[in-house]
Every structure is written in C-alpha cells, then in structure tokens.
C-alpha cells in the first residue's frame, strides 16, 4: 500500500508549494525540515514517561511548533535578506541551510536511523476484509486532516486569501494593506511545519536519519513539477502519483529501475509539458 508514504510526500510537497508561492523560490532546505521534524519527535520522546506507551501523535503540536520556528529562521536568514535578488540565490542559501541542519543533526544524533514511538498503538486493523497496519491508517488520516485543514484555511479564511493574494501579486498585496513580510514568514513557518509533521508521521513507520532530506526534497520537487508549478492540488496529487509509481513499478520490476524511470519521466514531462500535468499556461493580464 503506497498511500502512507504518498500521504507523507503530499504533506512535504504542500509545504514546498506554500513557500514557493510566497517567494517564487525553491526552498531546498525543505527535505531537511522533514528530517528536523522527525528528530524533534525523537528528541521529545525523551521527555515522555518511557513505560506508559504514550501515542506518538501527542508529539504533533510540539513538532509543529519547533519546525515552524525553524521555518521562520529559514525565511528570515535565507530569504528576506536576498528577496530582491534572482530566485537562484535562494536556491543556494537554502542548500546552505539544508547542509547546516543535516550535518548539525548528524553531529548531534549520529548518522544512524532513529525511530519515534508508534503514532497510535501497533498492529493491524481489519477494514472490510483487508488487514491494514494501524500506523498506515494513522499516517493517512493525519495527513488528510492536515491537508484538509490547510485547504479550509486557504479557501475560507482571511489569512488564506492573504496568502493567495501575496503569491499572485505581492506588490499589489502590499498596496491593499497586506503585511507582505509577515505573510511571507508565515508561509515559511507553515510550510516548514507541514514538512515537520511529515517527519513525525514518517519517523515510526519509516524511520528518520539525517541524510533523508535529499531524497525527500527531490520527491517534493518532482511532485510539484508534475502536478503543476505552484498548484497545491497538483502538488498533493503529484506526490501520491510518485508514491504509487515508485511502489507499483518497483513491485513489478526493481527498485533501481523504478527510481531511474521516475527521473526519465521527469525529463520527458519537462520536455513535453513544462507547465506540468495540471498546470495551465499562465493567464496573461491584458
């Protein structure tokens, strides 16, 4: 069942797009933000009474707060000072932040994978005759709740409208009184918190190690390109597609072949449909 991983990828990809839309820049530290979320969960576990078997999901608020602060730091250090330079500069500064986070965690926790407590219990549940692992269900459910929550915030709240206004025309957003810098930093906080939540969700079922960031950012990046640059719905769908593809193709051929084919498909998609599968050509204002 590729869906737990797909659900986590979707969270990562959505966080990536949130920042992308706010800054038109790629946040290459986003994969490391997932790792930071996972390690926050691992670290917070030390404060839980060890024998009570407290569900790992209880760590979610803590992980979200810590990674949101990390997001603020990324925005403030790696984006705001160079917001007027070409987006490529942000690419480089966030690569630097990624190095700092990954190697900092590596030096502190070691390179070995870690695991966080199970999100809720262990074992499997019978669901219409199919036995599904409890962890997978919780991962999917939590991701759905977070994604649904984000959709509601973006569609129905004033904050969400401000997010979207800033991403469509930042200068005009300021000209109607929106505090652009604040919204930009909030995008970093929210986007990174989504990555952090994904880290927590992954940490039990899939473990987390300091080097996990690079493959994750690559997946998120690909998901966003396949789903259509800047499209939130596309990013979530792209992430699911990648997970289904990876698992499906690996199950009938082999893992390296599945991975290689994914890269070939990215190149083909970029060649044939640079606007992605769901993206529309940018509407030009007359």
């Amino acid at each position: 069942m590729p869906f737990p991983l797909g659900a986590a990828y979707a969270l990562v990809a959505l966080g990536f797009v949130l920042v992308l839309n706010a800054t038109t820049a790629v946040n290459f530290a986003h994969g490391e933000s997932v790792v930071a979320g996972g390690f926050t969960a691992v670290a917070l576990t030390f404060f839980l009474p060890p024998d009570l078997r407290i569900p790992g999901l209880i760590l979610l608020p803590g992980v979200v707060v810590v990674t949101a602060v990390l997001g603020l730091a990324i925005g403030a250090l790696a984006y705001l000072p160079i917001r007027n330079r070409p987006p490529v500069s942000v690419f480089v500064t966030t690569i630097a932040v990624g190095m700092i986070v990954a190697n900092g965690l590596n030096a502190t926790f070691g390179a070995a994978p870690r695991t966080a407590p199970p999100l809720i219990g262990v074992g499997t549940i019978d669901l219409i005759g199919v036995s599904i692992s409890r962890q997978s269900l919780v991962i999917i459910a939590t991701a759905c709740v977070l994604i649904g929550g984000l959709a509601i915030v973006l569609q129905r709240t004033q904050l969400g409208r401000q997010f979207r206004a800033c991403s469509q025309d930042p200068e005009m957003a300021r000209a109607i009184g929106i505090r652009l810098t604040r919204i930009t930093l909030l995008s970093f906080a929210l986007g990174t918190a989504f990555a952090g939540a994904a880290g927590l969700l992954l940490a039990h079922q899939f473990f987390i190690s300091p080097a996990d960031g690079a493959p994750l950012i690559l997946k998120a990046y690909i998901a966003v390109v396949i789903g259509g640059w800047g499209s939130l719905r596309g990013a979530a769908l792209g992430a699911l597609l990648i997970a289904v593809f990876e698992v499906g193709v690996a199950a009938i051929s082999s893992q390296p072949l599945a991975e290689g084919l994914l890269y070939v498909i990215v190149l083909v998609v970029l060649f044939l449909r640079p606007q992605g599968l769901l993206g529309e050509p940018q509407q030009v204002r007359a």
Partner: protein
Amino acid sequence: MNPRNSLMIFGGGGLAIYALFFASSYDQRLLTLSGIYVVLVLGYQFIFGHAGALSLAQGAFFGLGAYTSGILGSQYGAEFLVTFPLSVAAAVTIAVLVSIPVLRLQSHYFALATLALSQLLLLIAINWEPVTGGANGLSGVPPVRILGWQLARGLPLLSFVWIIAGLAMLVSYWQINTARKAAFTVMRETPLATAAFGIDRSMLRFRAFLLSAAFGGAAGALFVHTNRVVSPETLSFGVMITCLTMTVVGGRFGIPGAVIGALLLTHLPEWFRGLQEYYLVAVGVLLLATVVFAPNGIEGLLRFGKSSPKPSAGTATDEKSEPADIGGSELIATHLSKRYGGVRALDDVNLRIQPGEIVGVIGPNGAGKTTLANILTGSATSDAGTVTLAGHDITHAPEYQIAQLGLTRTFQTPQLPADLSVRDIIRIAQADRPAANTDAVLRNFNLLAVADMPCGTIAHGIRRRVEVCRAVAAEPGALVLDEPGAGLSPEEQGEISALCRTLAENGLAILLIDHNVAFLKPLVTRMVCMESGRIIADGTPEDVLADPRVQDAYFGVTTL
C-alpha cells in the same frame, strides 16, 4: 599595474613557492586536488555565472569524466592522451543530448532537470556492475602516463594538474572575451532585450552548457588519474555541492574567483579540523553568509582596482559625419490579431511602412500599441496574420533573427545592463557586422564622449540615445521605437527627433509609438491611432488628430 593584477601575481607566486619548497606531500595532495577543482569551477562559471542558469549537472559531468577515464584506464590500460579527450567528449556528448529538452527550460525547471540527469547517472553507475564495478567502483586506474612517460606523485603530478588548470584558464579567458562577456551580461541582466541585440540566447546558453560539461569531464579525468580509483562518490550530489560552494564563495565570474574558491574549500577542512563533525555545518554557514553579504564572492570583495572612466571633456569637438546610406526595408503587417485571455489586444491590424517613412502610432493606454511592437519584432507571436520585412515573411521567425534580418527596436525603458559601457553595448549590437566601425556610429550619435562610461551611470536622456544607437548600430532596414521621447526634456526630445529624421532620410522605415502628440506631429509622415486593438484612423497627422473618433478615444474631449 592595477592592484588586482599585482595581487594575482603575488598570490600565484606565493602559492608556487609554497608548493615547491614548503608543502609536505600531504599539502601537495591538497594542492593537486585544488587544481582539479579549479578546472571544475571554471567550467561551472560558464553556465552558473555567465549564463546565469542554475545547473545541477556539473557534478554529473565530473563523474562522467571520471568513469570514462576510470573504465578506459583500469579495464583497457588506456593512456592519459586517450582517456582525457574521451572523458571530455563523453561529458560533452551527454550535454548535447540533454540540451535539446533541457536548455530552453526556465530556471527552476532547468535545475530539476539537471538534478534528475545527475541522479540517473549515479543510479546507472551503482547498478551497472559489470561495467562500472557497482558501488565498489573500479580500482587499478593507472597514473597519468603520456607516451610511456609516467608522472610521479607529489610535485610532478601537482605541476601537471596546475598546467592543465592553466590551460583551462586560457580557454576560459578566450571564451569569455570582452564581446562575449558583454553578450552574457545582456542575456543575464536585460533578458527582454537580448534578442533585440541580435543575440541568439539559446545558442549562447548552449555554448555555456557545453563548455561547463567539457571542463567538468576534464576535471573528472584528472581526479581519477590522481586518485587511481573511480567510485559512485564522483557522481554524488556532494561533488555538486562542493562545486557550487566553491563557485559561490570564490566568485562566479572570474579566474581568480575559481582559484580562490577551489583553494579555500579544499583547505578549509584542515583549518576547521577542531570542529570535527560540525565542519560541514561551518561550510553551510560560510555559504549562506557569502550569498547574503558578498553576492559576488571573495573575488567581488577584492574588486578594488576597478576605476570608472571619466567622460572626456571634448563633447563639442565630436566631429559629426553624415550616417552612411544604410537603405531601408518595407515593413508590412496584414490582418494581425492577438488575444490575451478574454481581452482582444490586436484585432485585424493592417499596416504598411515604406522606407523613408516615419509612422507614428498614438492611442490610449491598453490600445495595443506595445503589443503591436512586440509582434512586429517577434517578442510576441500573433494569433493570426503575417508580417513581412522587405518581402520576407518574418511572422514566425525568432526574435533575434528578426533583429539580424534588419528590424530592430527600442524599449519603453531603455534595456541597458548597468555594468556595460556604451561602447560595449554598440559592439555587441554590431557582432554580426564585423566591418562596422563602432567609433563612427558613436560619433554619429554624439556618444563618443561617454563611450567608456558604464550605462548605469549616464543620464536618462543619453541612455535613450544609446538605446536608439544600439538599435541602429546593427544597420537595420526598419526600426520600431517604443516611446523614445518619454521622460525627456524638450531639448532632448528635439535631439531624438532630429536623429529620427536623419535615419528616415537615409531610407529606414520607422514605426514610432508615443503619447506625446506635440513630439510626434511635426516628426511623422503618417499617423495611426489605435483603440481597443484596432486601427481607428490612419492618415496625415492633421487628418488623424482632427478625426472625431480619435478626439473621443484619445483625448476624451467629447463629454460623457
């Protein structure tokens, strides 16, 4: 001698003395490695620095070179004279193959595509065990051997690597000569105007990408013959990050930057040894700080020797010669239409401009004037209709080719890179006219006095003149001027008027868009008024301005 050159000479000399007399064998190894990275970084400067494209394939080209030399060397005992050129060729071949789908992509897509390519090559290296040796890689790569003569480790190898690095510097210097550097600058800083210069943007990017691949392959070959083993490490993203860090920290544009970046980042682990595992954290902090505080790297910080030339005093002594008879081309637009979303920007526009004619276009904002200019010059494509220049159909020709064919334009805001001098600008525009005399053109436009000043420092009125001069320097047959009088004082507008008149007398067909009727009326031979994408009046200025529809549309004189 300027301080920068002397610094380079002293730095280089000091380094040579250190390598010859003071460096331990371990130090020599580090210096050898630095030399290899110099080649890699010089290559990366073409695409990342000059072309301004974030390629993440430089590590992959390095790995490709490494594997080519590694396989040929260890499996077939091939000599350096065979492995080296083939390594370069392998990297260039892959670059050519992927450049068709990849090079036209926008920045973030380009980055992802080059990253995907790198990951693909890494995957192949790991999993194609029979050929690549899999994750273990291949050992037993011979040292550098040339015609049977084998280079010993230590000083001989060090010298050899730095000789190659020196050659790479020469190639880099030759490729980035003044003219091409200027073309790259135009492409990077005023992308809108690149084609107006007649510069083929995709060709320039292609060249930069191939050069980066060639240098990457060369560096990979050197690395493998130095290390004597090849492994997937050479293809890992770590190499790319190292290269990127060296380039950003050292500097993106110049040879000194490449040398400083490579030397610094290879020696930093030694100096930061006390940090142990936190070393890479420190490198991350260094990279971040450099981008934020020193966007042009250490080389940018050292750029103290740069003096800006002062305008020569004798403006008045510029001798004006009459412009040569450059002839003209008839420009015809038929049935042009263009929609943007729900808005009709152009609606069945027909226009003919004969050599020697100045046609003025007026109309309220949003009437489609700039859209018309964009479609004529190829920077936008029409949904329907044709454009011909001197009988040639140029409707679907690429923008840069239209410029080369003899239809050039100016922009509402002059598109002139701030760092380039006026003379540079004119030279790039004349790149396809090797016989053209830059000074003569500058003299005709009364620009000799400011010829060596950076465009960023000259007054707006003169910038307009430079912009027109740039458009004329390529000896076009037709000219599209987009608001050449905007923001100019009446005197400056008078100068531009006189200029236009002379050009028309020499046979050019001129389309002139402006709002300023007072400026247009005495200048143009014909006037056209547009509204909502349509031409609503076409005739002598007097007739057009007297037309009630024009009065209504443009001046809103009729009350509501």
